[in-house]
């Protein structure tokens, strides 16, 4: 099953999101790689460590802000895992939720990414 990695500048943000997602879908493996040296930021070494724990797996990464994406890109290269790591350019919360639901259906990384990226344009409030 496609794995989900949440890369965020804030540990609290990533852990909170992970908790929310896991409650919606407990069967999908979700990990967080967040923060830099205990503070705000992202760190390629932290991200690599998480990626390498899933060495044989397909991984879709959701990230919060641009430099998180850059560090994920770098971490995938450093780990020699460019082929297995798919980065979704999606809203962090809504995209991650869509990704986790899609992964739960046993979908490929490409479909999980597509679901995440489509989620941002969805209306959350029902039409009156």
């Amino acid at each position: 099953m496609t794995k989900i990695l949440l890369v965020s500048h804030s540990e609290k943000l990533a852990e909170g999101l992970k908790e929310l997602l896991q409650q919606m879908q407990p069967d999908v493996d979700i990990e967080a790689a967040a923060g830099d040296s205990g503070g705000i930021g992202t760190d390629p070494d932290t991200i690599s460590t998480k990626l390498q724990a899933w060495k044989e797996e397909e991984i879709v990464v959701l990230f919060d802000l641009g430099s998180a994406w850059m560090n994920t890109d770098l971490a995938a290269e450093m780990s020699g895992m460019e082929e297995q790591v798919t980065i979704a350019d999606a809203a962090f919360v809504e995209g991650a939720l869509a990704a986790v639901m899609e992964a739960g259906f046993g979908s490929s990384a490409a479909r999980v990414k597509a679901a995440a990226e489509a989620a941002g344009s969805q209306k959350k409030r029902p039409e009156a």
Partner: protein
Amino acid sequence: MNQQDAVNWILSFQKKIESSKEYLTDLDQAVGDGDHGINMNRGLQHAAGVLHEKTFETPGDVLKAVSTAFISKVGGASGPLYGSAMLKASGSCGGKETLEDEDVKAMLRAAADAVQARGRAERGEKTMYDVWEAVVRAAEEKEDIDWQHVRMKTAEAADATKEMQAKKGRAAYLGARSIGHLDPGSVSTRMLIESLAEVLESGDS
């Protein structure tokens, strides 16, 4: 350019960043998250420590060590951008003990390409790539690199980011309000090139 020139290049850059870290941080507070000076200073302090402790055979070895320092110690977007630039620059130097002007041009081109690829940047987006692109063009204009010309074009490119609207990075969220502020990464990249020019100019004549 030999390994000692490469070490001197980075040590000179470290001093420039250290003495302007507040300035860079002020620039970054206007358009980003306000940590550019602090992050760059931390990374370069670490790099300088490594350069003092270890001995290196080639310029490529020096730049490889600097790349590692940037990737693991700088953070933000500058860590992966500078780190990738230095890594590809190092790769371009290969195992050569001395770089001729042709090799220096290739090294600068490799660094510029790495910044562009890592940031998916294009010219005119108010990023450090604007400076890198100008550096490469200026260096390649003459057979023997005219460092005075490179400095002038580098300065112009860094200054030109002020009137641009940011299209990449945290500053892009500001939209038109990013106009009127220098791009901090472009200003620090200018310092990197100034340091290189200082080291190689003195070795030229």
